[in-house]
């Protein structure tokens, strides 16, 4: 079976109709897989103005050409949808096995629309696909859901994506979980699943994945694994995982502390990588991954795979919480309930600051970790204070004030890097399609270890643009973020798994195409340059310690940089891709016509 099958499972939960449809091979060339293919499928006959929690929204699951092959770190699955948190397109990516298993089941993608009458699980294998009733799983956490789904389908080897009670209750920052190991869904993908009465998706595969020339593939992939650092036993992502970033962010002064009021945390050594390693039980890798970043930690009473740096930052220093046991507890709770830890930490921090400053008494202050844990439990069920927190910082601050301290972009709470310590990250957050997201352009690396001054916007528009293009290609063609792969190497891998003779330039071009396609979605969903903005705090308050101490990051300078960014991108002054640009990127006429009509009217 080819590495690209051209097969999608199309599921309408309203009617119960399930059919296999064809994905044109041309889409694998133009958009490849994961993020790119997901956006293309989502936008096929789709109105970006629909209510994300309505049956009209689609959930698109996409593997990639490389998933199921021996390429390291390639088993990832992307899920694309319209976000109920931001109203933009959002896509998340999950490790574990699911992406590869979907290929072994004979599919490149699944597209789910409609809404089931009762709580359901979608199950598929090479021989059948069915919607199973699972009403008894209402309110059940993701860990137990997965166990019970495997029993239900009678196969302990089934791979499951489980939605938690947070998603069922449509919390706008709810996410899904797999293998008690990995999560996905910033932007509220769990809520979209919940709105469709979809509790879980399970897949089992036993087919094979072929490549054009197996001998050549094995030779090239082996060589790349050995020379590109993925098998290096001293790779810090293997030895430590992402907690390695705590010390770096502390020293660089960009560790979010007390709701981004500060960029350094005095007790950072209680929650840094050395502290986490003291309670580490085991390492784990995703399917096919040589890097093996996973860490299972055992705190005093809770265990979790994690915590990732983001979770430590947002649920640790950002809450003035210096207890790693509490971080583990919050992480485990969020994973089971299906809550994004970044947004959860951010909304708690906002509530703490509002209380401390006497602006609104949420009854919780910085450092009140026991109360924090209690609120987290209630967020998933939208009870009491949890119902307030479940709104997220944007809606909560619109209700109670303190919008300056609501740390979000387009409604998505900011991750663990204060842009005042790395100005390129500010442009990155402002222009990421799904809102305050660090995954599209990791400007930090170039500013810390490159020749770029972190405290200027000069050169940052181009930096972010180039990083976004490369990253979008990488997250579409197939490998995980933690493999710092060049576009040239990615091209070689795509050539031996898909066929053809790809170049790094073509790879970046694909990335640019996909980035623009997502921007087109957002423009048609009503977004423009006035939404590419950072929270007021970042421009109006200076950090007080570390390298960014007393360095202002003026709003005016950022808007100048954004204007430069739009020019480099070939967009108009309102931050909208021009139809000519879309034509240059070889995006299909059907989108260009729809898009042209939209911008001419607006």
């Amino acid at each position: 079976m080819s590495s690209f099958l051209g097969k999608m499972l199309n599921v309408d939960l309203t009617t119960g109709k399930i059919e296999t449809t064809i994905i044109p091979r041309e889409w694998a060339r133009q958009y490849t897989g994961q993020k790119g293919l997901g956006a293309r499928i989502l936008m096929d006959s789709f109105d970006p103005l629909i209510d994300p929690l309505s049956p009209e929204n689609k959930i698109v699951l996409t593997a990639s050409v490389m998933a199921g092959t021996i390429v390291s770190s390639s088993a990832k699955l992307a899920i694309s949808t319209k976000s109920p948190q931001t109203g933009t397109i959002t896509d998340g990516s999950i490790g574990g096995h699911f992406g590869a298993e979907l290929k072994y089941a004979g599919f490149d993608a699944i597209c789910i629309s409609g809404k089931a009458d009762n709580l359901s699980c979608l199950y598929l294998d090479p021989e059948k696909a069915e919607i199973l009733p699972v009403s008894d799983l209402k309110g059940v956490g993701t860990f137990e859901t997965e166990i019970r789904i495997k029993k239900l389908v009678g196969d302990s080897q089934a791979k499951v994506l489980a939605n938690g009670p947070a998603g069922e209750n449509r919390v706008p920052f709810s996410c899904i979980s797999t293998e008690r190991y990995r999560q996905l869904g910033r932007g509220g993908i769990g809520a979209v699943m919940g709105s469709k009465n979809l509790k879980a998706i399970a897949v089992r595969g036993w087919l094979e994945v072929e490549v054009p020339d197996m001998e050549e593939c094995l030779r090239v992939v082996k060589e790349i694994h050995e020379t590109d650092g993925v098998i290096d036993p001293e790779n810090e992502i293997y030895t430590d995982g992402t907690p390695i970033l705590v010390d770096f962010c502390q020293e660089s002064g960009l560790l979010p502390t007390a709701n981004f009021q500060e960029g350094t945390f005095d007790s950072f050594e209680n929650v840094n990588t050395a502290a986490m390693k003291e309670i580490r039980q085991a390492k784990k890798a995703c399917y096919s991954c040589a890097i093996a970043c996973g860490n299972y930690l055992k705190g005093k009473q809770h265990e979790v795979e994690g915590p990732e740096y983001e979770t430590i930052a947002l649920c640790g220093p950002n809450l003035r919480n210096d207890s790693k046991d509490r971080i583990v507890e919050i992480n485990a709770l969020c994973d089971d309930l299906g809550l994004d830890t970044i947004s959860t930490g951010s909304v708690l921090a906002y509530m703490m600051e509002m209380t401390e400053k006497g602006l609104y008494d949420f009854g919780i202050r910085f450092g009140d970790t026991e109360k924090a844990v209690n609120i987290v439990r209630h967020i998933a069920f939208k009870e009491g204070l949890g119902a307030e927190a479940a709104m997220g910082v944007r809606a909560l601050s619109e209700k109670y004030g303190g919008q300056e301290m609501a740390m979000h972009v387009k409604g998505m709470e900011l991750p663990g890097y204060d842009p005042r310590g790395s100005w390129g990250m500010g442009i990155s957050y402002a222009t990421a399609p799904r809102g305050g997201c660090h995954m599209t352009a990791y400007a930090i690396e170039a500013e810390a270890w490159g020749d770029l001054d972190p405290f200027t916007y000069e050169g940052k528009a181009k930096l972010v643009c180039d990083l976004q293009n490369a990253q979008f290609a990488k997250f579409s063609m197939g490998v995980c973020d933690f493999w710092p792969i060049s576009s040239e190497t990615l091209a070689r891998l795509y050539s031996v798994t898909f066929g053809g003779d790809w170049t790094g330039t073509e790879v970046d071009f694909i990335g640019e195409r996909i980035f623009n396609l997502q921007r087109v979605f957002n423009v048609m969903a009503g977004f423009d340059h006035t939404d590419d903005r950072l929270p007021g705090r970042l421009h109006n308050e200076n950090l007080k310690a570390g390298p960014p101490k007393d360095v202002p990051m003026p709003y005016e300078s950022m808007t100048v940089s954004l204007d430069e960014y739009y020019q480099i991108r070939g967009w108009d002054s309102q931050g909208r891709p021009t139809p000519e640009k879309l034509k240059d990127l070889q995006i299909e006429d059907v989108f260009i016509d729809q898009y042209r009509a939209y911008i001419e009217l607006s």
Partner: protein
Amino acid sequence: MPLRVKKATCTGCKLCQLACSGWHNGAFNPEKARLKVSHKYDKSGIQISISYCNQCGKCVDTCQVEAISLNGSWVLVDHSKCIGCKTCLETCPLDAVHYDGKDKSVICNLCEGSPRCVEWCPKGIIYLKEKKSLTGRAANE
């Protein structure tokens, strides 16, 4: 010269299964690999385990039609003699016998001296006892 595995440090990546099936079957399919990695989560946390052939030769002894032999270092199955009775599968103490689509017994033959799983394991967790693996990592007990 059997395989050895440092079980405690296996990360469960299954690149060994991918290499095995890719090499022997010309396609990637962990179901067809001659070693199996699995993981589960129970009250003692995450457990990763590998089942693989250590060339003990029990299948050689139990085969009713003498289709299986031990060639010094590795097991050989003669498919022209194999009748698909599954005795070897049922008597293997390590669950290391598999069956292919033609109902013939498939057993690890160490890739006739250059095990692909050893070559591809990213962390040197699978190795050949008393022999340097192909990637130059020294074996140790």
